[in-house]
Each structure stands twice: as structure tokens, then as C-alpha cells.
């Protein structure tokens, strides 16, 4: 089991190779053909997806045990997990990456450095995927670093945009601070357990005192909170959603979050159940995050900021799964499903923004239902999915999350989440109102980005499909075990 099977890393390697290939092609392609890099990047993602699909199948032959999912194992001396959740995260991240690439084609068409953009995007996806699989403190730190460092750059990618630069620096400053804190926490963990591999940490940690343990995990959680956009390190999210290039905003509000939540799950499952107090703290963080995100979103007149804040609140919901971890068998499938739904919704909503060439102000959306009915419908579906209206995917996600939370004995958190869902409807509906109920002010000049519109519609359709076909996800994840 501890072999260094390079074949375990085929999806990751594909991304890496693809990224380098994009860089090289960017060097040689004439400017006119630079958008070809998008195609190359997309191809890379497709290869990675195929590899991720093939991975369990290829591994199955090697492991003939009687277990339910014999192919699940820890690789690279326990530092990297190959399990259902890591693979699910790969799918989500890769899917998001593919959609974001499609969003970027038109958006970055005029940018001469788009080759670097796609290369960095693939690297960032690689970071998120590695994060999801990380089963080692150092791997976790580096994966986060990879994801963050590329993320900062992607956010700053518009060299002429004042907002882009500002968003990037705030993103960076907050990330560096929390990362610093996390490093100290990781050092403490190493001291307490003598190792950085999750699977070897659990036993020694049970012997550790409460004081260093709390200090250590709190610092690590702060670091991860930054990645997922949870209180208290949430502040970058709305600013980045607002200032970053819209396709990048779609990406960085989703992909790192997926990886970080999975690794957070792995991480807390290493902690001793008693005496560490982590469950209550995560519950408190979840409660604060969802409430803050929703309250702050309440009166937003800018859809990009609104999506940023709603991304904060969605993090709060997702954290409910972490709270229920180990107490409800529903928790992890719910988390994965919810993340998939959230990813589709967020990308879909940003796709609408991209399709409208970055249009953000609420009043400019008046009458959208008439001028762009399909875009309006897609945005509506995304929003309603966020609220949790059935049969959209967001509903089944929230349903299972609430169920897991109640099952875990945290009914108050579920009740709070319900109240928050109602609150969230208020600001989503505040946006939907003008779209449907008002007349368009005048002919809006910008043409529509058709590819992005397609992405929006595909995302919305996928939300419906995922909602109706929820069983595919839950069935695949039933009886899966989170490796650590």
C-alpha cells in the first residue's frame, strides 16, 4: 500500500504536463492563434477527467481485497489519499476548470498573455486537486500554497484593472497572514505527534494535552478558513469576487474551496473526538459564516459582490457537514454533493456575468428576462439552487446537510441554517425582481458572450439534472470511507 505508484497521479500529472504544454505553445503560437491555448487547456482537463475516471478502474485490478472499494488507498507513503472523496473533488474541480476555460476564451481574447493564464489556471486546479488528496501536513501546506500563489496571480491578471490589482493584494495579504498562522500550527502538530502524515498522527494526538492541541488546530483551521472563505478569514471573498476577472472569480470562489473542505474533513478526523472541542468551534464558525455572509449580502447592488458574499454563506452551510463528520454517515456524501451543486451554481451565475461582459450593477439587470430570457432563466435557476428550492441540486445538498446536522445532534445549527436560507432568498429575490418585473431601461450596448451564455445554460441544466439525478452521487459515495 505504501508504494510510490506514479500511476496514482495520472490526473495530476496530466494537468502539470498540460500546463507546461500550454506555456510552450503560448511561446510559439502567433498572437492571432493564442486563443488556441484555451483549446489545449480544455484538452488537458478532458484528459485529466478521463484519467480520474479510469483511475479506480485501473486500480481495481491491482487490489483484489474483499472491501467495498478495494481501490481506495493511501499512496506515496501515506501522504496522498486516493479515495472516493478525493476523486469526487477531482471531478468537481476539473469540471469547474473546464467551464471556466470556456468562460475565459472571449473574456481574455484581447490579452496577449493568455497562455500564462491558462497555464496558471491548470496549475491552480492542480493545487486544488492535490489539496483534496493531501493526507499529510506538508502536502497540505504546499498544495494550499500552490493553489493560493496561482490564485493571487490569476486574480491580478488584468494588468490595466485597478480593481483587479486591489483584489489580488488583499487576497494575498490575507492569505499570507493566515498561512503564517497555519505554519506555526503545523509545526506544533509535528512536535506533538512526531510526524506530519495524517494516518500516523491520530494515535499520538490522543495522548496530547488539550492546550497545545487547541492552539495547533485553531491555527490550522484559521489557515483553512482562509481557503474556504470562512469567518474569520472570509474578507477576501467579496473583494475578489468583485475585483477579479469574472472567470477567475468563478474559479477561485469554488475550486480551492472544494479541495480545502475535503482536506479539512481529513484533518479534523485526525483530531481526537474528545477534549479538543473542534466540533463546537466548527459549528460556531459555520453559524457565523452563514449568517454574516447572508446579512452582508442583503443589500448588495452589485451582483459580483453579491455572489462573493453568498459564497461566504455557502461555505457556512458546507461547514455543517464537517460538524456532522463522524456522527452521521450522511455528512460526507452531503458535503460532496453540496459542493458540486454550489460549484455549478456559482460558475453558472458568474457565467451570466461573463456573458454580459462583466455587467454587475443591479439596476442594469432590469428587464433581463425580456432581452436575454435564457440568461435570466439560468441565473434564476442558479439563485434558486442556492436558496435550496427543489428539485434543483442545491436543495438535495441542503436537505442532506440539514439531515446530517440534525442527525449529529446539532439541530440548532440546522434551524439557524433554515433561517439563513430564508434570509438569502431576500437578496436573491431582490436581484430577480428587476430582472423579471421591470422593463429594460434602454438598449444595453454590450453584446453577449455566447460561449459564456452557453456555460450558464449548461450549468443551470446541470443543476436541474444533478438535482433530479442526485442518486448517482449519493449511490457512488454510499459506504465510502474517508481515508486519512
Amino acid at each position, binding site marked *: 500500500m505504501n508504494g510510490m505508484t506514479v500511476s496514482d497521479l495520472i490526473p495530476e500529472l496530466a494537468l502539470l504536463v498540460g500546463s507546461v504544454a500550454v506555456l510552450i505553445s503560448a511561446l510559439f503560437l502567433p498572437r492571432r492563434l493564442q486563443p488556441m491555448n484555451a483549446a489545449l487547456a480544455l484538452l488537458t482537463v478532458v484528459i485529466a477527467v478521463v484519467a480520474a475516471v479510469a483511475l479506480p478502474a485501473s486500480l481495481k485490478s491491482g487490489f483484489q481485497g474483499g472491501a467495498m472499494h478495494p481501490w481506495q488507498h493511501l499512496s506515496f507513503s501515506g501522504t496522498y489519499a486516493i479515495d472516493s472523496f478525493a476523486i469526487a473533488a477531482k471531478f468537481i474541480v476539473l469540471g469547474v476548470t473546464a467551464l471556466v476555460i470556456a468562460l475565459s476564451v472571449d473574456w481574455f481574447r484581447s490579452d496577449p498573455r493568455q497562455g500564462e493564464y491558462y497555464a496558471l489556471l491548470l496549475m491552480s486546479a492542480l493545487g486544488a486537486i492535490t489539496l483534496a488528496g493531501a493526507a499529510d501536513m*506538508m502536502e497540505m501546506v504546499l498544495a494550499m500554497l500552490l493553489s493560493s500563489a496561482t490564485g493571487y496571480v490569476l486574480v491580478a491578471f488584468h*494588468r490595466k484593472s485597478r480593481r483587479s490589482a486591489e483584489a489580488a*493584494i488583499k487576497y494575498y495579504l490575507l492569505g499570507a497572514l493566515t498561512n503564517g498562522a497555519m505554519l506555526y500550527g503545523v509545526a506544533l502538530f*509535528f512536535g506533538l505527534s512526531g510526524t506530519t502524515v495524517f494516518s500516523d498522527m491520530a494515535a499520538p494526538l490522543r495522548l496530547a494535552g488539550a492546550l497545545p492541541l487547541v492552539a495547533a488546530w485553531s491555527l490550522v483551521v484559521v489557515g483553512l478558513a482562509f481557503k474556504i472563505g470562512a469567518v474569520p478569514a472570509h474578507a477576501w471573498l467579496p473583494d475578489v469576487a468583485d475585483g477579479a476577472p469574472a472567470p477567475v472569480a468563478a474559479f477561485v470562489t469554488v475550486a480551492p474551496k472544494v479541495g480545502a473542505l475535503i482536506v479539512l474533513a481529513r484533518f479534523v478526523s485526525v483530531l481526537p473526538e474528545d477534549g479538543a472541542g473542534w466540533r463546537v468551534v466548527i459549528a460556531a464558525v459555520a453559524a457565523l459564516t452563514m449568517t454574516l455572509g447572508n446579512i452582508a449580502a442583503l443589500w448588495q447592488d452589485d451582483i459580483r459582490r453579491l455572489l462573493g458574499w453568498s459564497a461566504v454563506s455557502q461555505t457556512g452551510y458546507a461547514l455543517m457537514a464537517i460538524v456532522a463528520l463522524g456522527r452521521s454517515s450522511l455528512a460526507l456524501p452531503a458535503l460532496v454533493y453540496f459542493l458540486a451543486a454550489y460549484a455549478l451554481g456559482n460558475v453558472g451565475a458568474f457565467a451570466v456575468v461573463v456573458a454580459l461582459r462583466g455587467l454587475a450593477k443591479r439596476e442594469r439587470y432590469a428587464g433581463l428576462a425580456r432581452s436575454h430570457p435564457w440568461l435570466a432563466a439560468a441565473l434564476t435557476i442558479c439563485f434558486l439552487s442556492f436558496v435550496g428550492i427543489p428539485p434543483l441540486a442545491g436543495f438535495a445538498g441542503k436537505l442532506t446537510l440539514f439531515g446530517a446536522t440534525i442527525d449529529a445532534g446539532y439541530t440548532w445549527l440546522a434551524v439557524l441554517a433554515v433561517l439563513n436560507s430564508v434570509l438569502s432568498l431576500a437578496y436573491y429575490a431582490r436581484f430577480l425582481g428587476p430582472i423579471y418585473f421591470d422593463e429594460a431601461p434602454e438598449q444595453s450596448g454590450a453584446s453577449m458572450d455566447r460561449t459564456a451564455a452557453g456555460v450558464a445554460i449548461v450549468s443551470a441544466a446541470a443543476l436541474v439534472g444533478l438535482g433530479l439525478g442526485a442518486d448517482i452521487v449519493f449511490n457512488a459515495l454510499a459506504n465510502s470511507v474517508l481515508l486519512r
Partner: protein
Amino acid sequence: MSREVLLVLGAALFGIGVYGALSQQSFVMIMMGLELMVNGAIVAAVTLWSRAAAHSPKGQLLAVVFMTVMAVEAAIGFALVTNVFRIRRADITEKLKALRG
């Protein structure tokens, strides 16, 4: 050179770093604070390797990883600070508040 003393040293560097990161207006000075924090973490890592888990080479590796983090953050940080200064003529946090609310 007991473990406790070394860890207090690490904590002190980290604390100074926190103070610097929070108190400085200039981006570059903030970055210095952040580096000091990492410095503290490195001290802690090496200490805990040497004084608690010397059997594991991972402790050293941890310090390497921390240094990598420091280098990467510094590089990206410089790039971003240059960038924002170029576009916004902003060198302190107070000058960047277009994105808020």
C-alpha cells in the same frame, strides 16, 4: 537551550511578526511582518524536531517547506505590490479601498 526557551523565542518572533503585519501601513513592511511570523514558525519547527522528534527527518523537511512558503510568498508578494503600485500608485493599505461593502 531547552525546548521551552527555544519555543518562547519562536513565539516571540511570531508575536513580533503579528504585530508588524497588523500595525504597518506599507505593504512591504507588512510582508516583513509576515516573514517574521514564518521565521518564528521555522524556529518552532526546528526546535520541535531537534527537541521532541529528532527521530523523524520530517522535521527538517518541514523547515524546508516553511522556507519554500516564505520564498514563494515573498516572490508573489513583490510581484503583486509592484503591480498595485504601478496601477494605483498605492503603497499602503489605506489607499486600497475601492472594493468594499
